[in-house]
């Protein structure tokens, strides 16, 4: 029972990060191959705060999320202002993520590549569930707000959106910061659940896993990526598949999805729309 519970907790922690990336990639239309770095920043910030400075856990979580948001500005401001081609942006953030890892590996306070052991186990199932629920609630409201509408407009057509008065730079930056805050929160929870973190836990492989969940779940849906991420973490863990075969399957899955079903599991619709027809916040007319 404990084992299953820990899988569910891990899956929920991962879902929080996927939720953030979904706002940025699924709804704003910018691909990121570096969001694991924000998870790492959140994890290290909160862990260092509770480990060395005995800061209360909720405060440390908030600080981790805020730190991830701030760090995202470092990469977001120059690249988004320059309006890079979307694939160049993905590569720039990939480079940023790798550089971040090298920095974490060489700082004194992060204990370098050996990692930070013995972080207190503050993360419990109710806390994770509460964070996830709060995250979903905020994401839904965000996407229904003016800002969310602007994000979706940019995803559909950046040039048309700009013509209609959407400010590209500000909206994209906001979306990036929001997504980084989600990842930072997820990182803080992760650190205090595993009680051990290491820079190699936040590399391109993890960024790809996050992106895979968003793409597999459907870009323009919140529930799709959540389901995908739950399946991605839960299923291999429950079947006790070795990590490398899991990654073999992820890779194959990414290719198959791109070739056969690029709209992903849920496409642009939400789970709730199967029960109620009118509600479709990712709203896009099917061509």
């Amino acid at each position, binding site marked *: 029972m404990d084992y299953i519970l820990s899988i569910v907790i891990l899956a929920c922690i991962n879902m929080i990060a996927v939720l953030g990336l979904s706002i940025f990639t699924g709804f704003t239309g910018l*691909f990121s*191959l570096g969001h694991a770095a924000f998870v790492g920043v959140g994890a290290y910030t909160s862990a260092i705060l509770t480990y060395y400075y005995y800061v209360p856990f909720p405060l440390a979580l908030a600080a981790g999320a805020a730190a991830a948001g701030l760090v995202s500005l470092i*990469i977001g401001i*120059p*690249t988004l202002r*320059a309006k*890079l*081609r*979307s*694939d*160049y*942006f*993905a*590569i*720039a953030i*990939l*480079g*940023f993520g*790798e*550089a971040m890892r*090298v*920095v974490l*590996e*060489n700082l004194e306070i992060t204990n370098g590549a050996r990692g930070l052991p013995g972080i207190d186990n503050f993360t419990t199932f109710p806390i994770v569930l509460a964070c996830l629920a709060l995250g979903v609630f905020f994401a839904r409201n965000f996407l229904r707000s003016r800002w969310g509408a602007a994000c979706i407009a940019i995803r559909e057509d950046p*040039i048309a959106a700009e013509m209609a008065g959407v400010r590209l730079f500000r909206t994209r930056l906001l979306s990036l910061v929001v997504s980084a805050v989600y990842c930072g929160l997820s990182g803080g929870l992760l650190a205090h659940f595993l009680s051990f973190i290491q820079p190699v836990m936040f590399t391109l*492989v993890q960024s*790809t896993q996050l*992106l*895979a969940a968003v*793409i597999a779940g459907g870009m323009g849906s919140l529930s799709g990526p959540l389901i995908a991420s739950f399946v991605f973490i839960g299923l291999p863990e429950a079947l006790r598949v*070795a990590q*490398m*075969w899991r*990654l*073999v399957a*992820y*890779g*194959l*899955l*990414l*290719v198959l999805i*791109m*070739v056969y079903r*690029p709209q992903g599991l849920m496409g642009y619709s939400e789970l709730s729309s199967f029960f109620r027809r009118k509600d479709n916040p990712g709203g896009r007319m099917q061509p």
Partner: protein
Amino acid sequence: MWPGLFLQTLITGLSIGGIYALMAVGYSLVFSVLNFSNFAHGAVIMLGAYVGLALAAKLSLGFGIVLAGSIAGAGIIAVLNEKLAYSSLRRRKAPSLYLMISAMGCAVFLENLVYATIGSRFYAFPEFFGRQVISIGGSSVSLLDVGAFLFALVAILGLHLFINRTRTGIAIRAGVSDMTMCSLMGVDLDRLIAIVFLLAGGFAGVAGVFLGIKYLVYPTMGWVTNKAYIAAVIGGLGSLPGALAGGLILGVVETFVSSYISSVMRDVFSFSLLIAFLVWRPNGLWGTDSEEKV
């Protein structure tokens, strides 16, 4: 600055840069035709190194045959990769990001397949060149470094001639400027793209063998191609002379940073350079204009 150390650093940098350039050429070739970043290139380099290793260690063949076998093996793998993972996307004119994600998937798939089947052990090539050392102006250079550097120069020059002088080369250049028009003029696009991937794969094979000899062979060795990618960006994605120059520049600058400033900051420096280039000079030093089309 001590001149001996300076010269030594410069030469080491150039030899690393030569390998970066070999890898960057593969990236640039594919990028110039299909306009997407082929992240699977690193995995093809890794597989090329394993093919070479199998020929060298199991069959104990000579260096020439190992190199040829690795070129052929990696070339075929690259073509298969295109046929299975990219061709249907290309035909329905999917956005280049879909191709990039598919490439990412291929890289993750191939790397972990090797990891799961062959294992994570580090393998070394048998010593082809021994530890022979040449002395240039008081600083010593291994024969392998000189060989790799010269081979990279000759191979890239050969490719340059191929693209500029032959009929197929003309077709490739036509494809670079306009795919649809090129196909209307009677060029078989599938064949053309297969040739491009074959060439890119061949260069990946060479790079794989040299990397494997210089360092070791292991499943994640393809990650070095991140550096090759940076080199391609510095030179301008899609430009062959750019790939060569970018590789050499990156190799030299990196070696200087690691020997005069700090070796751990080397990678941070390289990635910062990448971001700086993408932001301020996304077309590199020699790249062609590549605005995202409306």
